[in-house]
C-alpha cells in the first residue's frame, strides 16, 4: 500500500521524492513523538482563535503523552516484544504510511492528522506497555492467575 501510494505520487510529481528525502525523518519523529521544530524553538504562542489555541495545547498534550508511553516502554523493556503483536505492528505501519504520504505530498502535519497515529498508538500499543510490569507476563494475566488460584 505504501509502495503503491508512493509510486502514484511519483508518477504525478517526480520532485515529491526530493521532498520525501528532506522531510521523512522530521515527520517520522513528529508523527511518533509529537515533537516538532516549532515546539523546540518555542514558536507556538497561545494567541488567536480558540480553535488555534486548542491546537497548540493539543500539540503539547500529544508530545507529553507520547513521552510518557515511550518512556514506559523503554523502562519496561517492551520495545522488542511490541513488534511481535500483529495489531501493534499494524498501528506502527499505519503511522509509517501516514508519515510517508504526508512527508511526500505536503511536507507537514497538522494536529488532527497526528491524532490518527496517536489514537492507534494509545488504543493498540499502550495496553501492551501499561498492562505489563513483568516482561512477558501482563498484569491482567497475573490477576487472572491469582484469581484462578483463589478459586
Amino acid at each position, binding site marked *: *500500500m505504501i509502495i503503491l*501510494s508512493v509510486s*502514484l*505520487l511519483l508518477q*504525478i510529481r517526480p520532485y515529491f521524492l526530493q521532498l520525501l528525502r528532506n522531510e521523512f525523518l522530521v515527520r517520522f519523529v513528529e508523527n511518533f513523538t509529537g515533537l516538532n521544530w516549532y515546539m523546540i524553538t518555542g514558536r507556538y504562542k497561545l494567541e488567536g*482563535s*480558540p*480553535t488555534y489555541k*486548542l*491546537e497548540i495545547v*493539543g500539540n503539547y*498534550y*500529544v508530545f507529553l503523552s507520547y513521552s510518557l508511553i515511550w518512556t514506559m516502554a523503554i523502562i519496561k523493556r517492551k520495545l522488542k*516484544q511490541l*513488534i*511481535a*503483536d*500483529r*495489531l501493534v*505492528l*499494524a498501528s506502527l*505501519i*499505519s503511522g509509517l*504510511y*501516514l508519515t510517508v*504520504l*504526508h512527508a511526500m*505530498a*505536503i511536507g507537514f502535519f497538522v*494536529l*488532527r*492528522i*497526528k*491524532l*490518527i497515529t*496517536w*489514537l*492507534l498508538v*494509545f*488504543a*493498540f500499543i*499502550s*495496553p*501492551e506497555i*501499561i*498492562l*505489563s*510490569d513483568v516482561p*512477558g*507476563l*501482563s498484569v*491482567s*494475566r*497475573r*490477576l*487472572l492467575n*491469582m*484469581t484462578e488460584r*483463589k*478459586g
Partner: protein
Amino acid sequence: MIYQTRVSCRSVLIGSRKEESTKLSTNARCILIHRERWSGLPAELVLVALQVSIIFLVLVWRIDYAGSTVNNPIWTEPQQFSPFMPDEVSYISGKMVRFISLSDVLLNYLENPVNVNLWRFHIFLKSKGFKWVQIVWINIVGYFVFVAVLLSLLDNLVRNSAYRFLIFAMITFNPGLFQISVSSIRDIWILVFLVASILSLRKKLYVLAVLFTILLGILRTYMLGIVIFFAFAMFFKKSFPSLSRVSY
C-alpha cells in the same frame, strides 16, 4: 462477579511492592473502577459528564469569540466575513472547492492520495441546508459517538481495569479532539469511522466493516490503507506469539 472483583482488587494489592502505602489509593481505585458490580455499566461512563461540560464550555468560548470578532473586524478566521463561514477555505489545484462529486473524489485520489481536501464535509452539509452552528452540533454528536465506539473497542481489547480507565481518559480528553469537535471540519467523523471499521473487523461484522470503510473512504480516501493494514493483521495467522494478548 462480586467475588471476582474483590479478588482482582486484592490481587492488585498483593502484586504491589509498596503494599501498605498504596492500600488506600488502591481501594479507592477499586471502588471507582469496579462500580459495575452495582450498576452493570462500564466505569468510564463517569467521565461523560465531564466531557459534556468541557465540550459545552469550549463551544460557548468559541461562539462568544465569533460574536465579538464579527463586531470587531480584527479577526483572522474566515468567520470574520460571516459567523456561518466554515473554518477552512480550501483549494484544489488553485481553485476554491465548493463541492466534489464521488467521481471527482476517485480521480483526485489517483492524482494525489494525500489530498486532505477531497470532500468538504461542511460544504456538503451546507448544500443540504445546514448552517455553521448546526454543523458544529453534528460534530459534537460525532465526539460522543467516538467516545462510545472507542469504549467498545477498548472493551474488546483490554479487560476492565484502572489501566483501561486511564487509557480511555487520556484519549478522550485530548484537546485536539475538542478542537475538531467544535469546528466545522470533518475529522471527528473520520476518527469515528476508522475506529468503527477496526472494531467491526475485530467482531467479524464484515457488512458493517465495509459500510464504515466506505464512509471513511468518502471523508478521506487514503485512510482506506489503514483499514487494509488492520484487515491483514487480523486475517493472517500469528507468526509470533504475543504473551500479553493471551490473557485478554
